[in-house]
């Protein structure tokens, strides 16, 4: 049975190259749906059985490779499948304009990599054996690389792709050293099984740190995130939706998988993850506010949400450390549910961003505005995603944050002074991140969609095809469903958290709270309904007319001029969080004596503190050093021969006098 599936997949994957441009997409879609059905069945199997589902595949140099699907992998399969499905459906409409100028081979190569990405992600989640895990991990990075540089005509996309590939290999290096250390110390061959034994005997923090850096680069925690802010904007929107929806979650999967094996010195690990996540959360959203490019802004928000997931996992680990099952189960359940939620609303946001890009061909929000009148459906969907990502009640973002909050508050009671201070730090961090997210998404939504048109870029934009809107509606419905009926998610999340936390009873008695939430939300919807009815009844009786916005009755200027610009909206953050955000202003200042001002200009650029110091400056230093060295590379042969001769002479002299 296994072989048949394997053959079907490889042949249909390779078949893409043979088909004409028109039908390559459908071939890919069919294969993906087939994959989803298969893995969905496997997921269903693993859900209602006690131990992990084990399927033997083949034997590889001495150890047998088999798919091991426990509830954690099943959950991630579910997340992967949803995002890939919606991404594929969306890509049909998104790639239509590219069909004209891309050759058949390029399109086929793109679809093939898309499929390869899907397969490798599924395998990464299902494999425990070291070598095969690392092979598929590498395949995932390579497939993602080719997808990113799809629009390779722009130089910055190629740079972003190369930067992505280099950093993925740095991550790969960390993971493989960690695996080697564990296998050498325990004598077993490379794989997750060797971890079990290693962590029993040796101190777990150093190796965990290696794993954390390796998987953290993939996930995008703060000091390791620099590839993310270049790769996401460069990739085509359906790919960046999938990347920030699910590819960075592979990093989270890796970390959680490693955590399932660790049982010693959990407290330092928990505190470490919590601190890193708080920094990532606040830092990510603070920089997002000052961005002018909406795709880069959404990329920074992925970092912020990884921070929130990290806070959940961090307090989960701390719960395990002081064996307080309530904190542990709520923390892990909240963190992992946020993985799903983030996959949903982040891919929705990136897809809507893609639709905007397709219609306006610009990513600078300063010359958008008033798009709501031209693209109402996209606007409503973007608003839905924005409210969800800010963690506002009727949507799913709130539920996972609520779980983390309850975990934090509940465990505040039972913890000693140092722990309660860190828990309070977590609460404050979550509140500030929520506030900053509201600040950022009110800005981005209002500047793009509301008010009057700022430039002629949006003149001939119109609503996107329904084929692109359909996948976004699915995600929208899922977001609202999780948001309004949270009790549905309790049982599966308890099941998933069960992998790490043995006693997840506290999740079950959250059912009362969850029903309380959905009751109050339904009350909210009832109130809105009643008021809307009153409004409709009144508007028939009352006299309403339309006029210009009240601008103090001044008619001399075009209204776009008076709108609040994005830089002005973010000015509070630029001023108050100068060290965090690092925005440089170019403005020739009107001196006091100059009575009548002359021509002047004003421009701001924002730069990422970590990107500059960790990457650009050292790389720059390296390059300049290399230039100095390059003086030897004179280009004519005689010099090179001379170097060789000199070298031989020096060696002979040294060996004669026996210096070495």
């Amino acid at each position: 049975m296994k072989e048949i599936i394997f053959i079907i997949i490889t042949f249909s994957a390779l078949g893409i190259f043979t088909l004409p441009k028109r039908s390559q997409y459908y071939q890919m879609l069919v294969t993906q749906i087939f994959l989803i059905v298969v893995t969905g069945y496997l997921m269903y199997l693993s859900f209602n059985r006690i131990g992990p589902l084990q399927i033997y595949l083949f034997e590889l140099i001495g150890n047998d490779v088999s798919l091991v699907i426990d509830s954690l992998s099943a959950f991630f399969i579910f997340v992967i499948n949803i995002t890939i499905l919606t991404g594929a459906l969306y890509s049909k409409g998104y790639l239509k304009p590219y069909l004209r100028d891309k050759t058949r081979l390029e399109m086929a190569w793109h679809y093939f990599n898309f499929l390869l990405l899907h397969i490798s992600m599924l395998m990464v989640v299902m494999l425990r054996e070291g070598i095969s895990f690392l092979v598929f991990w590498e395949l995932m990075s390579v497939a993602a690389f080719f997808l990113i540089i799809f629009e390779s005509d722009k130089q910055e996309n190629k740079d972003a792709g190369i930067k992505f590939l280099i950093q993925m290999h740095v991550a790969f290096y960390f993971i493989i050293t960690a695996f080697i250390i564990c296998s050498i110390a325990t004598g077993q061959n490379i794989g997750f099984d060797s971890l079990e034994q290693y962590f029993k005997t040796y101190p777990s923090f150093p190796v965990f740190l290696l794993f954390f850096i390796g998987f953290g680069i993939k996930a995008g925690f703060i000091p390791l995130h620099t590839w993310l802010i270049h790769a996401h904007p460069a990739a085509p929107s359906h790919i960046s939706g999938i990347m920030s929806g699910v590819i960075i979650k592979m990093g989270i999967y890796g970390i959680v998988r490693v955590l399932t094996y660790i049982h010693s010195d959990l407290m330092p690990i928990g505190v470490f993850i919590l601190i890193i996540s708080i920094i990532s959360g606040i830092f990510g959203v603070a920089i997002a506010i000052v961005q002018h490019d909406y795709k880069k802004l959404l990329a920074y928000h992925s970092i912020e949400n990884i921070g929130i997931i990290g806070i959940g996992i961090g307090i989960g680990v701390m719960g395990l450390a002081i064996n307080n099952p309530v904190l542990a189960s709520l923390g892990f359940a909240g963190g992992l549910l946020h993985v799903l939620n983030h996959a949903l609303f982040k891919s929705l946001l990136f897809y809507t961003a893609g639709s905007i890009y397709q219609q306006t061909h610009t990513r600078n929000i300063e010359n958008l505005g008033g798009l709501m009148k031209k693209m109402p459906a996209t606007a409503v969907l973007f608003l839905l995603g924005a409210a969800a990502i800010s963690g506002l009640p009727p949507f799913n973002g709130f539920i996972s944050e609520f779980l983390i909050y309850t975990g934090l508050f509940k465990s505040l009671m039972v913890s000693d002074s140092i722990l309660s201070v860190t828990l309070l730090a977590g609460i404050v961090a979550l509140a500030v991140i929520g506030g900053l997210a509201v600040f950022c998404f009110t800005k981005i939504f209002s500047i793009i969609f509301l008010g009057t048109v700022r430039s002629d870029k949006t003149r001939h934009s119109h609503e996107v095809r329904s084929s692109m809107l359909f996948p976004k509606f699915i995600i929208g419905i899922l977001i609202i469903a999780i948001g309004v009926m949270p009790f549905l998610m309790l049982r599966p999340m308890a099941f998933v958290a069960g992998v790490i936390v043995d006693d997840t009873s506290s999740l079950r008695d959250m059912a009362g709270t969850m029903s309380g939430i959905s009751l109050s939300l339904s009350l909210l919807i009832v109130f809105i309904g009643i008021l809307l009815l009153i409004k409709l009844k009144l508007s028939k009786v009352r006299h309403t007319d339309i006029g210009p916005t009240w601008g103090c009755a001044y008619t001399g200027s075009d209204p776009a001029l008076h709108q609040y610009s994005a830089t002005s909206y973010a000015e509070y953050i630029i001023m108050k969080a100068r060290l965090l955000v690092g925005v440089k202003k170019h403005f020739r200042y009107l001196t006091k004596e100059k009575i009548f001002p002359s021509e002047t200009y004003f421009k701001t650029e924002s730069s990422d503190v970590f990107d500059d110091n960790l990457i650009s400056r050292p790389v720059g230093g390296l390059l300049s050093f290399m230039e100095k060295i390059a003086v030897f590379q004179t280009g004519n042969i005689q010099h090179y021969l001379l170097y060789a001769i000199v070298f031989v002479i020096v060696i002979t002299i040294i060996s004669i006098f026996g210096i070495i």
Partner: protein
Amino acid sequence: MKLFLETYNNSDSVNLADIPVLSYKYFANMLRSYFVDSDNHCLSYYAFRKDDKLKFICAIAKDSDGKIYLSSHELKAGITALDSLTPEFPQLHIFEREIAENFGITFEGHPWAKPVRYSENRADKIKVMNNYPFYEMMSDQLHEVGVGPIHAGVIEPGHFRFICNGEKVLHLEIHLGYQHRGIENLMLQNDNPIKLCVLSESTGGDTAVGNALAHSQLMESLADFEAPEDLQIERCIALELERIAIHIGDTAALCTDVGYQLGQVVCEALRTTIINTTQFWCGNRFGKGLVRPFGTNYPLNDRTVEEIKKILNDSGKRYFDMAERIYSLPSVLGRFDEIGIVTTEQAYRIGAVGMAARTCSIPRDIRSTHPFQYFKNHRPQVVIQEKGDVLARGMLRYLEAKESVKYIFELLSKWEYTEKSNLKPDYNYKLKPDRFSASIVEAWRGELCHFAVTDEKGNIMHYKISDPSMHNWFALALAVRDQEISDFPICNKSFDLSYCGYDL
């Protein structure tokens, strides 16, 4: 060859022909020689048509010895371009713009050549209120806040255009002209002198006494009439009463803008008591009708003096307590100190006058530099502040009100001993032909100048009103540069400049 004609404020008129007519080059050098010394500042510089030629008159005030220098130059009909003097002397910018707008003369090199008030007889009718050429900065990251003609409060219309980065104002431009009613043209209907008095009062209703006094003084100077001493004292008392009332009103307005309810409420009540005294004296809370040329309908009598003394004692003292409290409350000081600073250098360059100048340590007060009416025999104390911020303007109001109360008591004591002339205003006066006269009054905002030229038949040929706000509006634009936009209302209220005085 004489460069200028010397005369004094509130003295008899001069022959139009005596004012030396120079060529524009000479005229410009003369101005350069004068304006270099900061003791001189330009009162007014305007043009009018005189038998097919355009005659430019410039009045310069020398503060140290109270002299007024008059000079003029003429332009034949054909020429419509002159090179501008504003780059060297920014204080002339508003006058050159006014001439450019009314007569279509282009001043080459004028750095800020923009319309002034879109007057109905302007030369270039294409320019309309809606296409005012605002100053722009090249950036799509800045936003402009337009606080339009109709403001949130109950004040006169004017458009303020801010170029902002977030909450910080990079540049403010003020576009007025909404209140333009064409007063200067209406002043030329010589059929009913009472009309001229009522019109001059409605140039600026909040400075009714100041405008009426300047007009009456002008008519008396053109008709060679010297007001008797008691009439002069009454006029000075009326002027000072108006000054105290407005200063208390502005303190209340400053407290309103800052949200300090106690200060607002107490000062509002005190202002009502002061203007009710003026109403007790002449029947109108703003003193309209109180000052008339050649006499007065409402002579001061003992009952009114009693009322004035009682109110000034009681309300004056309470206002001083309240002002002390306002200017010592930390939350209020936090809003006034170091906000909206105009440096002395800037004040000199834009030719700020009156209160705007006195808060930047420039002692320009017509009551002591070019005394008029009874101020000639008894000069008041000039109040100066140094820092030029909102706090300085607030304190100036409080100290000037205190000074005025003391001054009124001195005048009242002098009034007892003067013999009462109780002259009635006489409206069929004859003005001397071909005369020119300047009458300057220190209204509560600053120096208010009325100029008139009579033709050969003795009718008024050209009437020019130069309100202190003409000089000071640009001071507000400078004060708000690089300030928070939320502090603009206090700066605006601390200056409290006139829209209808500027628009005429």
